[in-house]
């Protein structure tokens, strides 16, 4: 299939490379031309704008930072699109923003999927991402071979926006999960108990989770290198809290967690992994 890829950051680069490995013809565009180099070296074609990409492909994928970036590249896609084009955004943005962008593209005759991912850089490189998709069944069917080159757990959740709702739900669970593990560790230490033993014991019971296992291990090692940066988790929790505000939905745990991440970003820890919330907890109780 002829596939276009817009946005070649840490995630986008790995995902586009996997599309090439899967035998697809990939045309790329990125705001910074130098970030296109590794893809061109692997056999990708270059284009000068999102509109130019859209004119050459059957499927176009964006992987950028935030809703305004998605809206901007998709305006270009709408200008360059030919009949039957499917556009897919795999960035994490607000469900309402995804629905708006989908409606704008529909007006230009382009079918749109919101398809955010979970699994981080490791998952992007290993092609083991979880992909949660909102949009029409026909568009999903057309994009599915591309998704299968990039991820493993691919779920068509529902209508436009449903993918982003799912991703937001994912960030609620992971955000509170990281904070829960960090609080359990702070609790153990303040009681004079060895955290690593606590982790080991808990992994055998109902508190066992990927977060306790992987993030917990990195907390023990005090390895705060991202991974997933705090400011990005803060951004995602802000999407959750904005949406809850608009809906009149009470999310007390998410709200408390979002304030912890807010404090991390304000305290200059935004570039560290979100597990650095452990250090914030330790500071707050004088454990540092």
């Amino acid at each position: 299939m002829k596939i276009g890829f817009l946005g070649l950051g840490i995630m986008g680069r790995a995902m586009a490379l996997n599309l090439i490995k899967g035998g697809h013809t990939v045309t790329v565009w990125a705001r910074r031309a130098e970030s296109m180099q590794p893809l061109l070296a692997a056999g990708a074609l270059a284009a000068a704008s999102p509109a130019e990409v859209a004119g050459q492909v059957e499927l176009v994928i964006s992987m950028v930072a935030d809703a305004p970036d998605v809206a901007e590249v998709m305006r270009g896609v709408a200008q360059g699109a030919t009949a039957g084009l499917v556009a897919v955004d795999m960035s994490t943005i607000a469900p309402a923003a995804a629905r708006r962008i989908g409606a704008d593209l529909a007006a230009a005759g382009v079918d749109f999927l919101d398809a955010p991912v979970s699994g981080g850089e490791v998952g992007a490189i290993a092609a083991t991402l979880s992909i949660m998709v909102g949009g029409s069944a026909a568009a999903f069917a057309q994009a599915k071979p591309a998704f299968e080159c990039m991820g493993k757990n691919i779920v068509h959740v529902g209508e436009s926006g449903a993918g982003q709702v799912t991703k937001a739900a994912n960030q609620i669970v992971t955000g509170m999960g990281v904070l829960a593990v960090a609080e359990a560790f702070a609790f153990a230490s303040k009681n004079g108990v060895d955290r690593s033993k606590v982790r080991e014991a808990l992994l055998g019971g109902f508190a066992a989770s990927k977060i306790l296992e992987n993030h917990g291990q990195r907390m023990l090692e005090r390895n705060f290198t991202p991974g997933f940066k705090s400011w990005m988790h803060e951004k995602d929790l802000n999407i959750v809290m904005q949406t809850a505000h608009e809906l009149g939905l009470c999310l007390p745990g998410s709200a408390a967690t979002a304030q912890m991440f807010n404090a991390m970003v304000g305290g200059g820890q935004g570039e560290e992994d979100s597990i650095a919330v452990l250090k914030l907890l330790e500071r707050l109780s004088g454990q540092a």
Partner: protein
Amino acid sequence: MKLGLKVGFIGLGVMGRPMALHLAQAGYELFVWARRPESIGDLPATICATPAELGRCCEVVFTVVTSSADVENVALGQAGLIEGMAAGKVLVDCSTIAPEAARQIAAKLSEKGIHFLDAPLSGGGQGAIDATLAIMVGGDAVVLERVRPLLNCLGQRIVHIGPNGAGQVAKACNQMIMVAAIQAVAEALRLAAASGVECGKVRQALAGGSAASRVLEVMGERMVKRDFSAGIEARLHHKDFGLVLAAAREIGVPLPLTAAVAQQLNALMGQGWGRDDTSSLLRVLESA
């Protein structure tokens, strides 16, 4: 400023209407514009067709509307005040909006030499009727002194906080303290009722001690009487809390209690009590 001066007024709601009347009764010549002309009623005022026309007629213009977008529309939109007001004239915005929005509107108006003061209010509908409002002002101190005689017709405590936006920051602080206090009173009365103790007695006793406050007095009484008809519509506090948390996020300041109270307000909205009084936070607790 001398009596007989032409003063414009936009926003004739619960707050704006009594304020406009005070200015007219003090001897200023009143001009009004309203989106819904029927809201003007029997106010002794000259009716203008657009904000621009009102701006052409008046030396000083007051706005008391709901949201940042409302102020932007009236001030900067099509046929907005900016089209009619001449250099040296003053716009006093008494709405509660985001500090950043106030700064941006001030900057746009200053390009034409129009002065802007952000002058949000505290004291509610009763304070507006009694002309006992607290007014917190951001902007040029010299401009404030020019319009102070007008503000003296509306309120008793008029404080210059700092440059543009500072008035809105002060108002945000006011809302945080006030609504958190409403939540505290609601929780105390909920505990009392659930313990089989008479709420009215508890409120009466507390009003003489360290927990005494205006919120306990006014909102506490509403809760005891179960009179949830608005004073201040809770949806406005809900809106304000969205602004506060967004501003805190911009600068990376954690506000854990404000975030928790915001979730109770979300629940209140979700239950459909947005047009009732904020003392409805008691009903949120009762529904748990």
